[in-house]
């Protein structure tokens, strides 16, 4: 028996690499696989049952053995059986699937946050500490990580098969996904939503590091400025501080400590201030007027990149008081040369 060496190489490579199932590298993976095996089981059982029925009847009632058909109307009992049993199984699958869905999409409160911006055709990860990565993501093992993601152009989808997580990355809207990696190593990142010419090049690698290695990596690859620091410079350079100065007579609402609070809007509704709200309020202020303020803020649609918005959001999130706002206000008034928008990318 001769096997072509090329074929042999394929098989060896395949068996070594991943064979039939992807690696289980996150805390979610075993839960996802459990449901998968259950579904495989009922598929195989169902298929076997249908197969037995078809082949059994075909052999037993083939024309040579059973020349005259016996006409049967149907059977309510049987109909009920094969309505109720599949229904029950599907409902079990539904409940199981729903539980898994909530497990995958509801992040634990202590998750560390990393921003991801998708654009044709690359993934840009921004760590709060100011580390920037392209088509790569470094995360610690054993610690929940939440990704807050947004697309700068078309729909993308962020997928790490070995973690069994995936989420659409949508233009104009933050979406989130979380995972807790378990085993250090590197894993594929795929864009799974067709996004144009180089869709299949929009791939990357997530590197899971042990907590010690991760700390080392964070220190070595920082750009020197955290996202919030970038945001602070932008806040001053765009002149946000002129109105959002926090003083009693200011024309814009005080932003210190606003993140996470409940805000009364001019149109009577109440919102909880989160990342998405902050981003929308910057881009589309007339729809998000805080009660008691005049609708005078101009739109910043098209003027700030998604990266810049992330910086601003991070800055506002971290803002505890207005001390530095007022300080920068005085500085920027005395010196009109404001710092330019930072867009530094660590290659």
């Amino acid at each position, binding site marked *: 028996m001769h096997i072509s060496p090329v074929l042999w190489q394929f098989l060896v490579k*395949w068996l070594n690499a*991943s064979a*039939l*199932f992807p690696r289980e590298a996150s805390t979610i993976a075993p839960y*996802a696989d459990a449901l*998968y095996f259950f*579904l495989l089981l009922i*598929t195989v059982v169902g298929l076997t049952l*249908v197969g037995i029925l*078809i082949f059994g*009847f*075909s052999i037993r*009632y*083939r*024309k040579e053995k*059973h020349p*005259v*058909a016996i*006409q*049967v*109307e*149907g059977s309510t009992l*049987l*109909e009920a059986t094969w309505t109720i049993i599949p*229904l029950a199984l*599907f*409902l079990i699958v*539904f409940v*199981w*699937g*729903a*539980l*898994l*869905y909530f497990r995958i*999409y509801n992040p634990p409160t202590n998750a560390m946050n990393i921003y991801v911006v998708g654009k044709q055709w690359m993934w840009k990860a921004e760590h709060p500490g100011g580390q920037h990565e392209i088509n790569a993501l470094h995360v610690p093992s054993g610690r929940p990580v939440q990704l807050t993601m947004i697309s700068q*152009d*078309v*729909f993308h*989808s962020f*997928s790490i*098969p*070995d973690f*069994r*997580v*995936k*989420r*659409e990355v949508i*233009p104009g*809207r933050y979406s989130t996904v979380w995972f807790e990696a378990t085993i250090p190593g590197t894993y594929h990142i795929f*864009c*799974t939503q*067709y*996004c*144009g*010419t180089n*869709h*299949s*090049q929009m791939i990357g690698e997530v590197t899971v590091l042990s907590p010690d290695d991760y700390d080392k990596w964070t220190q070595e690859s920082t750009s020197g400025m955290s996202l919030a620091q970038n945001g602070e410079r932008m806040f001053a350079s765009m002149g946000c501080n002129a109105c959002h100065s926090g003083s009693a007579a200011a024309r814009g609402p005080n932003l210190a400590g606003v993140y996470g609070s409940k805000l009364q809007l001019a149109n009577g509704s109440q919102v909880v201030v989160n990342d998405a709200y902050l981003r929308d309020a910057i881009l589309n202020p007339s729809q998000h007027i805080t009660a008691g303020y005049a609708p005078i803020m101009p739109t910043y*649609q*098209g003027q700030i990149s998604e990266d810049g918005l992330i910086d601003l959001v991070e800055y506002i999130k971290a803002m505890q008081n207005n001390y530095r706002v007022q300080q920068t206000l005085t500085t920027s008034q005395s010196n009109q040369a404001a710092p330019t928008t930072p867009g530094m990318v660590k290659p």
Partner: protein
Amino acid sequence: MSATSSTIVNLPDQRTAALPKRHYLNNEDGLLSWLFTGDHKRIAILYLISITFFFFIGGAFAGLIRLELLTPQPDLVASDTYNKFFSMHGIVMIFLFLVPSVPATLGNFLIPIMLGAKDLAFPKINLLSWYLYWVGGLFTLAALVLGGVDTGWTFTTPLSTHYLNTHVVTAATGVFIIGFSSIFTGLNFIVTIHRMRAPGMTWFRMPLFCWSNYAASILMVLGTPVLAITLVLVALERLVGIGVFDPTKGGDPLLFQHLFWFYSHPAVYIMILPGMGVISEVISTFSRKRVFGYTAVAFSSVAIALFGFFVWAHHMFIMGVSNYSALVFSLLTMLVAVPSAIKIFNWAFTLQKGSITFETPMLYAFGFLGLFTIGGMTGVFLGALGMDIHLTETYFIVAHFHFVMVGGMLMAFLAGIHFWWPKMTGRMYPESLSKLAAVTTFIGFNLTFLPQFILGYLGMPRRYHAYPPEFQVLNVLSTAGATVLGVGYMLPLLYLGWSLKYGAIAGNNPWQATGLEWQIQSPPLTENFIEIPIVDHEAYDYEWLAHKTAHEVTTVG
């Protein structure tokens, strides 16, 4: 009972059967008599030729896709070209082949005859729908010839509206127009089934083929306009930038997907339901037994059509729809799976106590049962919320969809074409060659698409031009299977063409089937029936058939 067993023996010998002198094919001559025909049977033939043409175009693109995916590197064509391949494959196969496949060919041909009518309710609208199909088809071909379109068949915004320089509007116009063709066909069927049943043909005496086409017609008439509107919005957004789907203008890009899937999920039932009708006819005929639980099968078609409208958001579980709407749509998805399971078991139990023979249509139908079971069950994988997160947008989706549409629908279509070929042409196809084709298709199909389930679970995203090398083995298997599958589809084209001239004369009722279409000559007269039949028996009443045949033989003898 002895009558039943002796009927087969009493049959007029097929070898002595002769083609009738006058039938719908030779009633009038010349190309114009075809192009201006109002005869539903001729329109069905026109459709059959047209969809076969487009099937092989779509198939060629499938072949090119599989060829490119032989190697992990993007080496056969450029990425843009590859994207155009899969877009064209999807657009042609879905809108120009699968949607019209069974309804426009077999449905057109058979529904009036099965109901005992002389034609559909609106013969001219029927012809118009074929012309619209071609206008749409030409727009699609124009998009292809002018340089292609690379939106994928889903036309997802904002990619299709803002980021692509290809012939999106041309292709969208094509699909828009084909949509009207499908609406007219559906409308025609609904009116015909309501108004033109022969005396005595009550709703519950109709063959299940009519029921399933009726259900599909409702979906066509109610769903397709939404697709049309959506495509108009895409075109307007692209041409004048109205901003409905553009977040920078206050639009919502997810709205597009809601609208698109509101049609495109029911569309998969438009594609599969008529196929299920074919399977009911074939399995009943070759087990010589009425379909087990006729009403359950009939109502499950209607149930699928109704539920089918309320599950669209299961395409969007990872898109950030609210958790609670995800729950509702997942639950409804589980419910829509039940009628399909009911059908499978009813078909299986139709075999019980039958008298089964294994002609080609039956082999295709068995293929359908197996593949559709896998296709349906993997749909449950995808309907389960948490599982969907990992599986969606991977090759698992591709495999699932092809199991239902190719393994299910195309098997059913081929079963139907073989089954009614004697009626449509008056000649038999070659039996052993066609059995070979059925088996080849089945093997090729499984070899092509089973590896894709594994690829999907491993995480290989769909629509990827290049992929990590560890996925190569499974892709090579899949491509090898596609080659076998290609042979399986070429064979019928060849031998069915051959049989037009050289096939054995079929006679009126070669399968001893009960439907009204089998009680008239093959090929039928232009007016179908010399006198309108009066129906006094249920569908699949083999005892009625036995008495009738016995009576005929006595009269002749």
